[in-house]
């Protein structure tokens, strides 16, 4: 129902050129996944055939599942282990990042102090300095500290590229919130903690959710830093994928892993999208 409405809205409002433009954008985003999907269901796909020479369906008696999926789902691929690591590290990074950035964003949004702009510039340094440089430098230190090859080490390095994003997002949210609501709550007699719990946090929630989602996605996608700090002892989906495609060929199992790598992000995005759009969103809070 909703889809039909959307379609008719598209038809009535967009010109032919705009529709073609939208289709092209969709094509650029989704296009790269098509060969991966095909590859993951192929049995043999040799160069220079445009489509696989042999499909999995034709060779069903030889393997129960498509080759790619048979491998991905087997313990040898370590996909399950990598997925768990990725999600675990992503969650911890997100929570720590929030705990650091919420108070920082509050100060940046509301207070004026000397060197504030210099400090803000400094905060975005990790986005400017190449990851490899940070990674190598930190690896030296972490090996000495015994943090290399540990979860702690990986979580710390993941905070480096995620904090700048999170701080920026939350600062914008805090600026949008203004001080009226909190002052009003205080005049009505609320203590600092009550103001935080009953007013500030519920009102910041959409921004916090967006920031958390973004942090999680960035964390689950970091390859180089994870690769340096993991030392091969801790594998995540990106490092696993790299080891698969490092040889330069894209075989069926690599295609399968690539598809798996995209899954956590997509699921999370769908959940959040729904959560943020929910009209009754506010009703669950302040009870």
């Amino acid at each position, binding site marked *: 129902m909703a889809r039909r409405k959307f379609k008719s809205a598209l038809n009535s409002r967009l010109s032919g050129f705009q529709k073609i433009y939208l289709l092209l954008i969709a094509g650029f985003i989704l296009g790269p996944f098509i060969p991966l999907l095909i590859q993951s269901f192929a049995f043999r796909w040799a160069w220079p055939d445009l489509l696989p020479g042999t499909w999995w369906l034709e060779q069903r008696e030889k393997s129960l599942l498509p080759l790619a999926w048979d491998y991905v789902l087997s313990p040898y691929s370590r996909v399950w282990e990598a997925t768990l690591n990725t999600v675990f590290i992503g969650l911890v990074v997100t929570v720590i990042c929030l705990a650091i950035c919420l108070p920082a964003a509050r100060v940046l949004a509301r207070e004026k102090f000397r060197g504030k702009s210099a400090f803000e510039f400094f905060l975005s340094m990790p986005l400017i300095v190449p990851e490899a440089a940070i990674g190598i430098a930190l690896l030296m230190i972490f090996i000495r500290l015994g943090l290399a090859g540990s979860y702690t080490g990986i979580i710390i390095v993941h905070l480096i590229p995620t904090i700048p994003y999170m701080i920026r997002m939350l600062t914008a949210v805090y600026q949008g919130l203004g001080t009226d609501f909190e002052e*009003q709550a205080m*005049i*009505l*007699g609320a*203590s600092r903690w009550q103001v935080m719990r009953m007013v500030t946090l519920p009102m910041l929630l959409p921004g916090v959710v967006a920031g958390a989602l973004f942090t999680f996605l960035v964390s689950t996608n970091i390859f180089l830093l994870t690769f340096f700090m993991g030392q091969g002892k801790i594998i995540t989906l990106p490092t696993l994928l790299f080891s698969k495609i490092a040889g330069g060929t894209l075989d069926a199992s690599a295609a399968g892993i690539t598809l798996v790598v995209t899954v956590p992000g997509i699921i999370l995005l769908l959940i959040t999208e729904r959560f943020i759009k929910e009209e009754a969103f*506010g009703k669950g809070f302040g009870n």
Partner: protein
Amino acid sequence: MTKVQLKGVRKDFGAFTAISQIDLDINSGELVALLGPSGCGKTTTLRMIAGLEVPTYGHILFDDDDVSEVPVQDRQVGMVFQRYALFPHMTVEKNVMFGLKVRGTPKAEIEERLEEILDVVQLQQFRHRFPAQLSGGQMQRVAIARTLITKPSVLMMDEPLANLDTKLRGEMRRFIRELQQRLGITTIFVTHDQIEAMELADRVAVIFDGKLAQYDAPDALYQRPNSVEIADFMGANNIFAAQISASGLATAAFGTLQLDRDIVTVREGAGRILLRSEAIDLLLEEPDGENVIEGTVEGREFFGATVNYTVTCGGEIITVNEQSRRLVEVGQKVWLRIEPRHIWAIRDDA
């Protein structure tokens, strides 16, 4: 009921002085407006009374108790923000109960007071709505209810009528006035709009550049401003330089006018005279008597109920405002007459 006093209050923000010195007495149950252009310090004054800012020097007294350093949560005041600051994630009911809930009031009592206040502000049928589903006037009533339910000793409002359209303004003005009189609660509000200040307040405190410029009843402020700056701010448009004699005659470029010496305090010297545009009679034939100025109609602005004429008289332009029962043509020769008691004078060194 609470009497509010500001004694020698000063507020600095770093090197910037928002309020240089203010003394203000607000009687118990009085409705006072703090009026001034934006940036004059009126909002800072209100925030200091509320407890959101601490004065740098001086004292704020509630019923002779110094509350200058009492934290905002314990000050028992109420404030309605300009944009109402209704919590968007709570229903009308939850918004209104907020102040009692955070203070740990027993549930039965909260319920009872909620019903009572929802009746007062006539919001019973909207109690389960969210703020986004309310009109401006309804939001303001929620904000007022949310404040009044806590039984504040002083009620403060920041630009209470600014965000409402013309029709609602009248309605809310009557509502606020009536509620304030019924409850007898000391009320202070801030505004930059002299009309809003005059239509609502018992007394108006005009603040310019962090100083109290005049503190008076609306009619006194309008008829008898004590500086040109205030006259200008209160919307006066006929201010002319004049030489005032000991016998109470003011000589301006367009002629000489007799002043009422019981009203005008200026005795002698250079000053300004102030002619209220609505107190001037526009006559088409030369009348007998004093205080008549001859001139020609230069322009006409028609506002519906009233009409403004600009009349040139001896090189000066005098604005006359009258009910639009007739329309005088531009270019017409006219005589202006103003009674002595409608002329106010201000000394130049004031």
